[in-house]
């Protein structure tokens, strides 16, 4: 094969064992770890014993019976996949007898298999075909007219892959992959004996079944029984390029498998340290948006947003952009402009945008979408630990005994990591879920949380403080750890605070809605159950007390001694693919890359020297402040790369008003997003497939993004920013993103050892990668906290100003769903809509009954901020008094509802708590209608209009 072929050693590596065993295989002595299978031992020496049911991704199964070997002194022909090596064992992998047995087995397989190899989608990429060749089968003496499965109907219901039972060899690899790797248990064998067949759920077909379309089964299938439709349509790939997924913060690496210039499929890369060869429906399949007809490929400009767009040349667009910014700054002042970096773009691109603003615009008016998601993580963890990032790698969860998930829904939001977590839970780790909603992790097949604390939205701090109260007052704190690693006086103050009777579970139960006994039991389990790890998401940060909650989590982890080794830690699950990276790269108005304050003279001098300009020592404006300033008339131009603030930021009315008040809004994106409705210049963006760069995932892992095809729009995003910079008169001469990374490394101590060369060599690096830790740092704070002593911060519970009352008696909280991603710009332009075509409002049966609502009814959802309509989904996953929706569809406009309350420390919006009322409705709200009209007008493009 022309592309990097992945080797499959047949069985998993032996569990950690220091002991080795020596044996003889076909005359050679081989030494392998104790517990290794004969098959793997042979493969490591280069002998590939025939196999079909074995793969090193799954537990050995022993069903295909091709891998039989002879072992001296043992009767029969043991299967090499299920037989572990023993000291002194003498193994023969080839003999006349073995050849005959293997041929006999293969003859049986082929007697019930279609004979159309030459026209099969998997021709050339089929293990059955390979093995038939390997065992030398020539004739099927049974003939082909015996009982068979050749008439079985294909299941083409899944939008991405087909299942052809006639080509299935019933090796159960798909079933096992669904169970062992993904943990959904959606597949099974129906029947027994010759009638055995693979089915999804109760023989329902793949689409209606429990299948979550993660692709693990397709990946595991050795034939074309399960195969991507794209392979059938385009053909088998002829080369592969390893790159990093552009969806969530898990940062899965994939082999982009190409045929010529065409992407055939994305296949999770086995060596990927974040995903270990697994994938989800988004990264695996939902890449079709890259070629979607909605993509804008030519730059466009217009004088005002009432006008249709006019396509222009790149030269004109770039020159116009530069002149507009210079004009506005000349007229309204240096600080009247700013920019927003993207958490979906590469580190290098993000670095360039903030550099453009600091160096080119001469101010610090740069912010990023992390503002609206994980800014409290940055604040909270740097304050307590000294580093604005999670403390572990994903592998760490394999060592956890108690896992607490708070304000995160990993099976939907971070599915590949969720599968790892579920593997650990099936091994016996126990789980505590703190969430207003009964997410799948609380109770779903083969997963059962030990405790679910269904708190009222907005009461995170009270719940965590009550847990701390139990830890402290019941003597469960890890005093030795605290004395050694933290400031004892600060701890004592904090302990005295949390121990106050009014913070007890009993005293706060009415407020939080969490029964005191459950909370106590959960706290005891966390404190005493072994390695305790905390994973959290936006349900923690997107609150008026987001930063307090992050610090409360850090306090709890320190108090129980759960920091600084594998299996423990505080782990933010990042939303977007590069939200960690965009924060690292200096996207915030007060920080340079590596979280160094702009007011720090030494750091500033470093950058001033490198960039040859003097830099503004004052922090710039955050996104909400920019919008406020715009409505006040002092902020006039905004450069937005790869973000759709109109849809994703809170209080849509306010965002729209701010944008409308500006003289020049530049949007750089793949599609005419909602924000572009208010833009004057549109610069087409490039997809992750079209450029080189790096993303940094939730575990601080920096991974290469590799260009697999030329940008359809002509330029990678970094090149466009460079063109703008050059038009502004800056002397930028980057020829490749690696040079940008070199600059980042030179200017950022935690990235000191990061380079493309190092990334190519090691696959990935987790920052900090410094002289002291040149290969990166999987686990943080091992010998001490980065800030020195761990800091306990008294984080008092302060109720949000957003209160329910007679007019708005319900609390709305928001989240996402597996098949859609963020504002949906990408996933809505893929077949993923098969699973989630619209946002729905989840409402408890009692609340629905009180309002006369039935499942599927259109309802009006109103808050103080605005009103929208959507359809109701009646479910007891939400508690009475709580309603929930996703925000993937712009026509729902969930953020019309959300308020502009925000985190006290970072302005992260309080998406997760909005007082609302729900009532029957028969159509879109006035705002939705007005917005739809405006959007239709704003999206007109002149060339089209002229036709």
């Amino acid at each position: 094969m022309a592309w990097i072929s992945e080797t499959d050693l047949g069985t998993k590596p032996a569990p950690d064992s220091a002991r080795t065993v020596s044996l003889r295989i076909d005359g050679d002595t081989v030494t392998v770890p104790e517990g290794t299978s004969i098959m793997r031992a042979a493969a490591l020496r280069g002998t590939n014993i025939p196999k079909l049911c074995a793969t090193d991704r799954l537990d050995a199964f022993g069903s295909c019976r091709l891998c039989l070997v002879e072992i001296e002194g043992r009767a029969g022909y043991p299967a090499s996949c299920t037989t572990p090596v023993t000291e002194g064992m003498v193994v023969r992998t080839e003999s006349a007898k073995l050849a005959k047995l293997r041929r006999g087995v293969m003859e049986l397989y082929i007697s019930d298999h279609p004979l159309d190899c030459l026209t099969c989608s998997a021709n050339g990429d089929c293990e059955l075909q390979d093995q038939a060749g390997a065992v030398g089968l020539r004739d099927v003496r049974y003939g082909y007219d015996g009982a068979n499965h050749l008439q079985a109907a294909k299941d083409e219901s899944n939008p991405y892959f087909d299942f052809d039972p006639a080509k299935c060899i019933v090796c159960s690899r798909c079933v096992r992959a669904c169970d062992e790797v993904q943990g959904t248990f959606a597949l099974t064998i129906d029947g027994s004996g010759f009638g055995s067949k693979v089915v999804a759920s109760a023989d329902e077909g793949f689409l209606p079944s429990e299948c979550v379309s993660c692709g693990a089964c397709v990946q595991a299938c050795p034939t074309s029984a399960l195969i991507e439709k794209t392979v059938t349509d385009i053909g088998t790939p002829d080369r592969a390029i390893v790159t990093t997924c552009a969806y969530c913060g898990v940062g899965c690496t994939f082999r982009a498998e190409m045929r010529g210039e065409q992407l055939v499929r994305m296949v999770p890369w086995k060596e990927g340290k974040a995903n270990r060869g697994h994938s989800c429906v988004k990264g695996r399949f939902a890449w079709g948006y890259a070629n979607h007809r909605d993509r804008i490929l030519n730059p466009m400009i217009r004088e005002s947003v009432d006008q249709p767009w006019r396509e222009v040349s790149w030269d004109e667009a770039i020159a116009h952009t530069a002149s507009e910014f210079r004009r506005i700054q000349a007229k309204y002042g240096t600080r009247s402009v700013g920019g927003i970096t993207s958490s979906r773009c590469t580190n290098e691109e993000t670095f360039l945008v903030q550099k453009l603003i600091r160096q080119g615009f001469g101010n610090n008016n740069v912010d990023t979408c992390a503002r609206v998601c994980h800014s409290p993580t940055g604040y909270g963890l740097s304050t307590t630990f000294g580093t604005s990032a999670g403390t572990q790698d994903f592998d760490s969860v394999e060592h956890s005994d108690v896992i607490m998930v708070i304000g995160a829904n990993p099976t939907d939001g971070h599915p590949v990591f969720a599968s790892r977590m579920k593997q650990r839970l099936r091994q016996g780790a126990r789980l505590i879920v703190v969430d207003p909603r009964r997410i799948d992790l609380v109770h779903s097949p083969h997963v059962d949380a030990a405790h679910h604390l269904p708190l009222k939205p907005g009461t995170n701090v009270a719940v965590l403080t009550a847990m701390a109260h139990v830890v402290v007052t019941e003597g469960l704190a890890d005093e030795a750890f605290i004395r050694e690693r933290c400031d004892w006086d600060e701890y004592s103050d904090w302990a005295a605070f949390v121990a106050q009777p009014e913070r007890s579970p009993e005293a706060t139960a009415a407020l939080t809605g969490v029964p005191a006994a459950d909370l106590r039991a959960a706290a005891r389990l966390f404190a005493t159950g072994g390695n305790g790890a905390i994973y959290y998401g936006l349900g923690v940060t997107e609150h008026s007390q987001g930063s307090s909650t992050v610090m409360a989590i850090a306090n709890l982890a320190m108090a129980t001694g759960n920091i600084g080794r594998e299996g423990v830690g505080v782990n933010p699950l990042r939303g977007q693919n590069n939200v960690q990276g965009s924060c690292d790269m200096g996207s915030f108005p007060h920080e340079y890359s590596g979280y160094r304050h702009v007011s720090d003279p030494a750091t500033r001098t470093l950058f001033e020297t490198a960039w040859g300009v003097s830099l503004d020592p004052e922090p710039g404006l955050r996104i909400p402040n920019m919008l406020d300033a715009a409505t006040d008339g002092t902020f006039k131009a905004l450069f937005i790369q790869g973000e759709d603030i109109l849809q994703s930021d809170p209080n849509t009315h306010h965002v729209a008003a701010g944008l409308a008040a500006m003289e020049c809004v530049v949007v750089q994106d793949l599609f005419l997003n909602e924000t572009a409705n208010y833009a004057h210049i549109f610069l087409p963006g490039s997809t992750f497939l079209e450029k080189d760069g790096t993303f940094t995932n939730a575990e601080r892992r920096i991974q290469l993004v590799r260009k697999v095809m030329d940008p359809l729009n002509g330029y990678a995003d970094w090149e466009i920013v460079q063109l703008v910079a050059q038009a502004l008169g800056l002397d930028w001469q980057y020829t490749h993103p690696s040079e940008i990374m070199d600059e980042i490394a030179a200017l950022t101590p935690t990235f000191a050892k990061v380079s493309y060369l190092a990334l190519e060599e090691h696959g990935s690096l987790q920052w900090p990668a410094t002289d002291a830790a040149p290969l990166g740092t999987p686990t943080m704070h091992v010998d001490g906290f980065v800030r020195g002593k761990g800091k306990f911060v008294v984080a008092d519970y302060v109720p949000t100003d957003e209160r329910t009352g007679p007019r708005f008696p319900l609390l709305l909280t928001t989240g996402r769903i597996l098949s859609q991603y963020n504002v949906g710009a990408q996933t809505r332009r893929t077949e993923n809509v098969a699973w989630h075509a619209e946002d729905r409002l989840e409402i408890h049966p009692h609340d629905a009954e009180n309002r006369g609502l039935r499942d599927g009814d259109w309802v009006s959802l109103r808050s103080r901020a605005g009103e929208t309509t959507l359809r109701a989904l009646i479910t007891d996953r939400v508690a009475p008094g709580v309603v929930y929706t996703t925000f993937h569809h712009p026509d729902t406009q969930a953020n019309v509802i959300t308020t502009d309350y925000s985190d006290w420390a970072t302005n992260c919006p309080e998406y997760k708590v909005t007082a609302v009322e729900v009532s029957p409705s028969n159509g879109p709200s006035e705002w939705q209608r007005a917005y739809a009209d405006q959007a239709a007008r704003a999206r007109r493009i002149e060339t089209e209009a002229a036709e």
Partner: protein
Amino acid sequence: MTPNETAPPDTAYADAATRLLRGRPATRDALLPLLHALQDEFGYIADAMIPVVAAALNLSRADVHGVVTFYHDFRRAPAGAHLVRLCRAESCQARGAATIERIATQRLGVTMGATSADGRVTVEPVYCLGLCATGPNALVDGRPVSRLDAAKLERIAAEVLA
């Protein structure tokens, strides 16, 4: 794709499952006992029971379906009013089971493994009842009968077809 958002479970089956599981931890190893109990009560394992049983034991529908279809005992449709299970294992064959099977299916008007059109009787094979010295054997509505011959079959037919 959304296991917890499917149609509401059939309440009659759900109530029965709850009752039948009483006093037993709802762990996976309760699956066969629960399926047996449901079949004893309702006569067969209805399609609608699968999500109910899955929910009761925190399994996937696939898990339950795989088990239900694996075991010969679990029937997916109701049997006839009477159930005649004829042994066709070797010891009964050595004593003329094939002839008995031919006579029985003819007399009862139903093929082996099928239920008569009027729903009166189902005839099924069984592989050994452990009465191997006194075959041919049958279980007629759960009652064992040995040394089956034409006369005994006639009595059974009269009872079953009455």
